[in-house]
């Protein structure tokens, strides 16, 4: 542990502004002390020399060549100094602020802050790659329960691999926050690849509103993902394959799906729902039975023992139910997405929700999450037998793209409630949630703050930045300031799955990326390509004029 480095890079000046900061002075001619870089000093803790690790959070020059030496861009200022007799190359000196993380305790699996600033004049060293690889990761790369995301940004590629602790984010949830084009789907792809590696074999559900994740199917054919007789399975449910059985909808779902319900309709719907549930065999009922319940619970029914077609509330409710559920290909009387088909260890199920109305998407997600949560609870409590379709004897992880649609801030969505329940209680029953959003400002702050592992990529919008600052305590101010400056594929990971917040360059995906933007100019040029000339001529050709025949009375007979 105590590998003595060759050369220190700076010297401790003294304590910083806060009790956890200290200042060091470094000439740093090779520019090694970057923002976010890890440095350490040696201190005697309980009789043992420990490396007290810290992260560089600020850099301020304390000695610079005078501005007037920079008057001619063609003349290096150092030569002006040499002209006057100052021939040393030491023309710069920096004051570096370091946030102390502490020494890594193998027993605790965490950093322990010594709670005392270093001695002034103590040498400070750059942390070696080996030391960082050892202390930043909760689990070694490729080990069971590890998800290798990429390597530390301040070091050469692959010098310090960073692997997330899968147990951390599948238990206490994950948030991936990034603006459009910063690589959030790519990162999610990497994460899913890792979860399906032979050392993880997770049971995952991906809610994919844009149909970006279908390329993950390649995993099934790639050698990297198989080991022995294990091979991951990727199942894609296209929009026309999605089914939600009508009796799995709650009265809340129904109210959400039916637009503009009056007070009376709300009341009657509640009664009808209860009626339908009471009268259903084995808890199952169809739309027709629900409509029957609506008619049975009509106010007028009490007075005249027969259904009055003219009752406006009943008519309106029946009409709304029919238009919302009856004409939908998703809401079905008998078919449902069976949990045992959706979740299996080593299987990634992708629900493609493109082409589906947003409210329907929310209801699909809400019903699904509710069923998964209930199934896990019932399984854990031993209420379900092995043969039951809802029997889920293993933890599951659900990744939600465009999560702000399912738990919006300042708006009501049917999926918000169940999401909040799972985020706060799901840990006990092994239901992990991963939220991906490009607008954290639009995401419910309670939801965001419940995700204990955060992957934050480039965020330029100040509202979004503020929401992150409000909801996520583990990311320090210094890292938040980095967010607008991150490049594509660079991510700040913080929270339960890493020992300390780290800035990572995301690794290359093994499977191709499916979320690239359309290349419009290339498509336009393609139109003029040689081999498309004939096709183009055909598409642009005028129709041949055809004689139109008329009937005797002047109507068109056929054209």
């Amino acid at each position, binding site marked *: 542990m105590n590998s003595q480095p060759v050369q220190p890079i700076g010297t401790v000046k003294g304590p910083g502004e806060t009790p956890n900061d200290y200042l060091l002075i470094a000439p740093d001619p090779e520019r090694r002390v970057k923002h976010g870089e890890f440095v350490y000093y040696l201190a005697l803790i309980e009789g043992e020399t420990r490396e007290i690790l810290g992260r560089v959070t600020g850099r301020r020059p304390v000695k610079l060549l005078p501005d007037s*030496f920079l008057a001619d861009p063609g003349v290096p200022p150092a030569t002006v100094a040499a002209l006057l*007799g100052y021939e040393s190359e030491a023309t710069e000196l920096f004051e570096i602020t370091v946030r102390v993380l502490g020494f890594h305790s193998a027993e605790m699996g965490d950093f322990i802050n010594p709670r005392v600033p270093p001695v002034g004049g103590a040498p400070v060293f750059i942390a070696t790659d080996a030391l960082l690889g050892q202390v930043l990761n909760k689990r070694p790369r490729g080990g069971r329960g590890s998800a290798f995301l990429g390597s530390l940004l301040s070091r050469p590629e692959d010098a310090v691999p960073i692997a997330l602790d899968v147990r951390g984010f599948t238990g206490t949830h994950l948030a991936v926050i990034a603006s459009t084009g910063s690589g959030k789907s790519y990162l999610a792809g990497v994460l899913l690849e890792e979860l399906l590696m032979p050392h993880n074999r997770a049971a995952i559900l991906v809610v994919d509103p844009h149909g970006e994740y279908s390329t993950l199917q390649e995993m099934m054919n790639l050698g990297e993902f198989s080991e022995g007789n294990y091979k991951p399975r990727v199942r894609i449910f296209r929009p026309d394959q999605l089914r939600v059985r009508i009796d799995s909808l709650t009265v809340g779902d129904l109210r959400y799906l039916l637009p503009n319900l009056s007070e009376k309709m709300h009341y009657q719907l509640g009664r009808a729902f209860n009626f339908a549930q009471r009268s259903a065999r084995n808890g199952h009922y169809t739309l027709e039975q629900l409509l029957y319940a609506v008619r049975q619970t009509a106010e007028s029914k009490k007075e005249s023992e027969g259904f009055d077609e003219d009752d406006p509330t009943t008519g309106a409710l029946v009409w709304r139910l029919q238009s919302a559920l009856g004409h939908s290909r998703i809401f079905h009387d008998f078919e449902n997405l069976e949990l045992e088909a959706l979740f299996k260890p080593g299987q990634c199920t992708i629900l493609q929700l493109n082409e589906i109305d947003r409210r329907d998407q929310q209801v699909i997600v809400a019903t699904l999450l509710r069923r998964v949560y209930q199934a896990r609870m019932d399984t854990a409590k031993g209420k379900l037998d092995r043969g039951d379709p809802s029997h889920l004897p293993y933890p599951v992880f659900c990744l939600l793209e465009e999560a702000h649609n399912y738990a919006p801030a300042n708006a009501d969505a049917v999926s918000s409630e169940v999401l909040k329940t799972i985020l706060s209680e799901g840990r006990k029953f092994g239901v992990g949630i991963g939220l991906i959003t490009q607008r954290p400002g639009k995401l419910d702050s309670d939801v965001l703050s419940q995700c204990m592992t955060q992957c934050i990529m480039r965020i330029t919008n100040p509202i979004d930045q503020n929401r992150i600052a409000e909801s996520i305590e583990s990311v320090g101010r210094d890292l938040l300031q980095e967010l607008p400056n991150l490049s594509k594929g660079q991510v700040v990971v913080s929270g339960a799955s890493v020992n300390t917040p780290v800035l990572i360059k995301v690794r290359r995906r093994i499977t191709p990326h499916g979320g690239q933007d359309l290349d419009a100019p290339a498509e336009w040029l393609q139109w003029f390509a040689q081999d498309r000339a004939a096709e183009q001529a055909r598409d642009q050709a005028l129709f041949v004029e055809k004689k139109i025949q008329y009937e005797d009375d002047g109507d068109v007979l056929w054209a």
Partner: protein
Amino acid sequence: MTHLPIGKIVKSNSHIDYVCQVFGQGETLHPPAPSAYGFGSFVAVELETAGEPSRALVGLVYNTLLMNPEFGALGPRLSPRSEVEIFSPDYLAETATLLGVIAIGWLDVVGQVHQGVPAAVATVNCLVRRLERTELLTFHADDAGQPQLRYTPLLLAHNHALVAPLLLAVIDQLGELFPLSRRRLTVMRNNIAWKSIVQPAG
């Protein structure tokens, strides 16, 4: 071999600021060459009083002044210089080279060296000689053999225009005497050079 005296103390401006008059022609058998008392030279002021704990003061030449009574006498000369040398050589001896010497330490009777303000006082006519290389090395080495410059605050407090170049000259000399400690001397040299060369020019 002990260096020959280069001059004698003729005046002081303060407890540590002495004026040494360099021996001229006729005053000694071997008048010193100008290189013997150059700027930044270390000298020893031999104390005459016996029984005192201090044997000599260690000084540093920080300034030079030329005295010439003839300066300003612009009238016609009655006798040319060649004749003056024969008829009134005393008149020529009135020209003198004066050295500003700042006392930065002392040598005691048992041969120990000390840096800092000496307690002893030099008197008029005390002989001044160049410090030997071994004495210079001993004077600057601490117990661990590392160079020490404890008289630097004394020089800086002297508030003289030539203090910064003086310190640079001293550090350069020490760099040759203590090649193994050149790195720490460079830090000091860069610091002084920065403050005296770069910062005023900016």
